[in-house]
């Protein structure tokens, strides 16, 4: 039998437009900031290494842009994975409390194990994210109907509230942790270095590869567990793998950049609106659009907050939360 060669109708055009946007946002991210660069300076920065001020600004901004691209795509894919595993349109690491779990572990690490660099943050953040995800999903799926959006969101919000009071309780007696944490807590890509990019990269690649590998199985899962099993998909294995990949992606990003919310929500819904629910396309395109959204938010933050900057986590929350509200309004009451 011939393999189906189905492509969503607008795939090519959406892809091209996304790439164009990506290029534009990269350029914008290189140019704009506390000190705007000219085209000439950007070009010079690419071509030669000089000791000039403009060149060092360029270097810094290049790192920031690449770092933003990595984080954005990781968060975009994490959003798709969580949404499809929980079969829930409003799953996002920030809404499900996963970010707070990561934060709690990082704070405990700072306070009790004296960790202070991203190498160590990442393992604490990952385990925190993983445990919280399991916990929230466990509570949200108790009872009739499994993990409905409302149940999951409430479980996430409750867990988040519980964990954040623990975070503060750990933090208050230790002012050095408070100072360190205050800057970590606002998700930002400004502090990215080559090291943090290298640190993130293995997790990013593993997560994205795993998710692409899972995509066909997740497509079948979207039909319901029984249908998927009928099609010969090992539902539990794939669901676990996809959830794990999602948590790795958002946990690692949270560790290096701090909690940046709503990227997954924004990216996935935009792409799904254009391309439909096929995950084979949704996953790579969400990575792309996640990166674009994060970069654009970062640029907006730099422009609005100038001469300082508005951290990207703040901007994405301000853009993303209204989307959550729109989704809540659109959903049928019972299906919430």
């Amino acid at each position, binding site marked *: 039998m011939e393999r189906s060669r189905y492509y969503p109708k607008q795939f090519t055009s959406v892809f091209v437009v996304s790439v164009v946007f990506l290029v534009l946002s990269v350029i914008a991210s290189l140019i704009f900031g506390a000190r705007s660069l000219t085209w000439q300076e950007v070009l010079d920065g690419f071509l030669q290494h000089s000791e000039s001020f403009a060149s060092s600004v360029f270097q810094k901004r290049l790192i920031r842009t690449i770092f933003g691209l990595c984080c954005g795509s990781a968060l975009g894919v994490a959003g798709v994975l969580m949404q499809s595993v929980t079969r829930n349109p*409003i799953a996002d690491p*920030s*809404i499900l409390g996963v970010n707070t779990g990561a934060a709690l572990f990082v704070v405990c690490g700072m306070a009790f194990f004296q960790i202070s660099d991203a190498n160590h943050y990442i393992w604490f953040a990952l385990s925190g994210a993983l445990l919280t995800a399991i916990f929230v999903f466990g*509570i*949200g799926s*108790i*009872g*009739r*109907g499994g993990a*409905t*959006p*409302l*149940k999951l*969101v*409430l*479980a996430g*919000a*409750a*867990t988040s*509230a*519980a964990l*954040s*009071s*623990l975070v*503060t*309780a750990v933090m*208050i*007696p230790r002012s050095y942790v*408070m100072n360190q944490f*205050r*800057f970590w*807590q*606002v998700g930002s890509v400004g502090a990215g270095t080559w090291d943090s990019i290298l640190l993130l990269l293995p997790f990013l690649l593993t997560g994205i590869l795993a998710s692409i590998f899972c995509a066909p199985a997740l497509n079948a899962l979207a039909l319901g567990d029984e249908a998927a099993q009928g099609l010969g998909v090992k539902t539990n294995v794939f669901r676990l793998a996809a959830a794990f990949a999602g948590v790795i992606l958002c946990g690692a990003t949270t560790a290096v950049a701090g909690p940046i*919310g*709503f990227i997954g929500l924004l990216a996935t819904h935009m792409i799904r609106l254009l391309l439909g629910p096929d995950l084979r396309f949704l996953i790579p395109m969400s990575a792309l659009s996640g990166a674009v959204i994060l970069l654009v938010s970062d640029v907006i933050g730099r422009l609005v907050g100038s001469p*300082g900057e*508005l*951290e990207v*986590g*703040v901007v994405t*929350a*301000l853009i*993303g*939360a*209204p989307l*959550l*509200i729109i*989704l*809540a*309004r659109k*959903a049928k*009451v019972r299906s*919430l």
Partner: protein
Amino acid sequence: MNHTIHVIKQGRMSRRRRWIAVTLVLSILSIALCCAMLLFGNTIYPVRDVVAVLLGEEIKGAAFAVTTIRLPRMLAGLFAGFAFGVAGYTFQTLLRNPLANPNVIGMTSSSSAAAVFCIIVLQSSKAVTSFVSVIAGLLTVFIIYVLAKGTSFAIGRLILVGIGIQAMCNSIITYLMLIGEEHNLPAAVRWLTGSLNGVKLEELPVLMISCLIMVPVICVLGRSLLILELGEQTATTLGVKTDWVRVLLIVSAVVISAIATAITGPIASVAFLAGPIATRLVGTGKVNIVPAGLVGAALVLASDLVGQFMFQVKFPVGIITGIIGAPYLLFLLIRMNRRGDL
């Protein structure tokens, strides 16, 4: 027939007696906690000195500690706790859902965001801050109500919309904290957790007066609240002007809890815990506004004492109530999920 009336009367009497007894016990408990707040501290002054200071005598040392530190702290805890308890109970009853409270709906965080903005950016006075945070709270509730209304009113949608608004407000608070000056940091942390530290006596009259005006209003409307509990259609049939009562109740509840928030910051979980505890103590079928307020006050005062003296470090009251409240919230969610209420 006569027998039935007799049974009903008896039931009503016993419920009334229970209500009075519970209210009395709660009042005594709150008063005892207030006294404890005045007596304990870094130094423990004899009761005689404290009373003398309160009556206006100048006793070296004790006068400062009691009137400048402990009295405002105690009054703020008492009234803010009362306000949070009443507001939480009102919301829970109005929306017929134990999860509905000013925190979940996102109102508290918008009040906080407005207050932080006033303090850090505008550096405005306390009165302006209170006023702005009340307006912000009311506005948010209005926006959430409009957004959640849709074709038919649904509590699930209301909560989701509220969580969205909360996320926005929290991000604003986080940002404001970051740009805030170093010396504003303790104040900023108060806005994240709620604390009675550093409350000043002159900030309190706003809160006290609004409590004294609004709580009676809520109590008067409380009878209709009791009927609203039966469901909207029944209430309309029984002659309650549901829309007006609801608007008035929401406005009063929002006003007192926003004013309290402007002074103490959002003290976690009090609004959410007070109602269910009061209902458990008194039983349903009675208007539990006053008991709920007293439970709130007792919770805040007791948690503040725990936070001050139980550990080596002094924790603000919001952390203690947060740690008490969170497991209950999770427990409630699990129970609601099991029953299929969500």
